[in-house]
C-alpha cells in the first residue's frame, strides 16, 4: 500500500480542506438559522456566540487553504508540460485529458470552471465570518443583513460543491501523481 507525495497533497487539498468545508456548511446554516431566525426565541449566550464566530472563521480558513493549495501546489503539477517526445502522459494530467476526445471536456469545462469558481467560496466565507464577528448577537436586529449572509453562504457552498465535484472527477480520469513514493505497508507475496 503506497502513494506519492503529490497524491497525498492532492488528497489533503480535496478531502482534507475542501471536503471539511463542505461538511461544515450544513452546521453553519443550521446555527445561523437557529440563532438569528425570525422567531428570535433561541437564547444565545456569550459562549454560543464565541463558538459560532470560531466556527465561521474556521470555515473561511478551510476555504482559503483549499484554494491556495489547489492554485499554488496542485495546479502547477496538473498543467505541467511534458518534454518533447514523451509518450506516457501519466504524469501530465491536463495533457492526458486533452489527448483523448472522450476526456478533453473534463479539462475544458471541468478544470476551467473549477479553477475559477472555487475562489468565490473563500471570499463569501470570509465575508460571513467578518459580519458575524462584527455584529455578533446584534445580527438578529438586521434581518436583511442576515439574509444576505445566508444567501452568500449558500452560493459559496454551491461554488465549493462544483469545484469539489470536478476535482473528484478529474482525479478519477487523470490523477495528479508523482514525487516520492510513501509506502505504508508491504503486501504478502502470492
Amino acid at each position, binding site marked *: 500500500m503506497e502513494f506519492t507525495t503529490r497524491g497525498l497533497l492532492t488528497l489533503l487539498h480535496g478531502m482534507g480542506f475542501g471536503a471539511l468545508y463542505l461538511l461544515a456548511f450544513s452546521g453553519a446554516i443550521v446555527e445561523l438559522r437557529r440563532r438569528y431566525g425570525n422567531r428570535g426565541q433561541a437564547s444565545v449566550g456569550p459562549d454560543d456566540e464565541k463558538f459560532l464566530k470560531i466556527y465561521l472563521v474556521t470555515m473561511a480558513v478551510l476555504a482559503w487553504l483549499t484554494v491556495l493549495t489547489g492554485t*499554488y501546489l496542485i495546479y502547477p503539477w496538473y498543467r505541467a508540460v511534458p518534454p518533447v517526445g514523451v509518450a506516457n502522459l501519466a504524469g501530465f494530467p491536463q495533457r492526458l485529458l486533452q489527448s483523448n476526445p472522450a476526456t478533453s471536456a473534463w479539462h475544458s*469545462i471541468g478544470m476551467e470552471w473549477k479553477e*475559477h469558481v472555487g475562489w*468565490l467560496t473563500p471570499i463569501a466565507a470570509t465575508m460571513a465570518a467578518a459580519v458575524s464577528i462584527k455584529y455578533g448577537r*446584534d445580527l438578529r436586529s438586521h434581518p436583511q443583513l442576515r439574509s444576505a449572509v445566508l444567501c452568500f453562504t449558500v*452560493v459559496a457552498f*454551491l461554488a465549493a460543491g462544483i469545484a469539489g465535484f470536478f476535482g473528484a472527477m478529474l482525479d478519477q480520469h487523470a490523477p495528479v501523481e508523482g514525487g516520492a513514493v510513501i509506502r505504508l505497508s508491504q503486501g504478502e507475496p502470492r
Partner: protein
Amino acid sequence: MNPGGPVIPRPQATLPNGPGAAAVLSAGIGSFALSILAIVADKLPAIKSLLAFYKPTGPLSGVTTVAVLVWLAVWLILDRRWRARTVALGLVSAAALALLVLSLLLTFPPLADLL
C-alpha cells in the same frame, strides 16, 4: 394579555448596517471582478501573459490575486464611507447577490465563451 401569545420584544440594533453592507457588496464586487478577469485573460493573450504572476500557475495566479485585491480595496473604501451610516441594505444585498450569481455563471466556460 395578548391573545396571539406572548410578545417577544425585538432587540434594538446598536450597530448601523453600513459596515455589514460594505462587507456584502464588496464580496459581490470581488467575485464579479474575478469572473471578468478570468474572461479577459482568456480572450486577450497580452492580458493573459501579464497576469501570469507565478509562472507554474499561469494567469490564474494574477486573475485571483487582482480579484482579491479589488475585493479588499472596495471593502476598505466602502467600510470607511458607510461605517456610521444606515444604508438601503435591501438594494445593496440584491445587487451583491446578483453580482455573485452572475460570477458563478460567468465562470462557467461555455457561457464565458459566448461573450
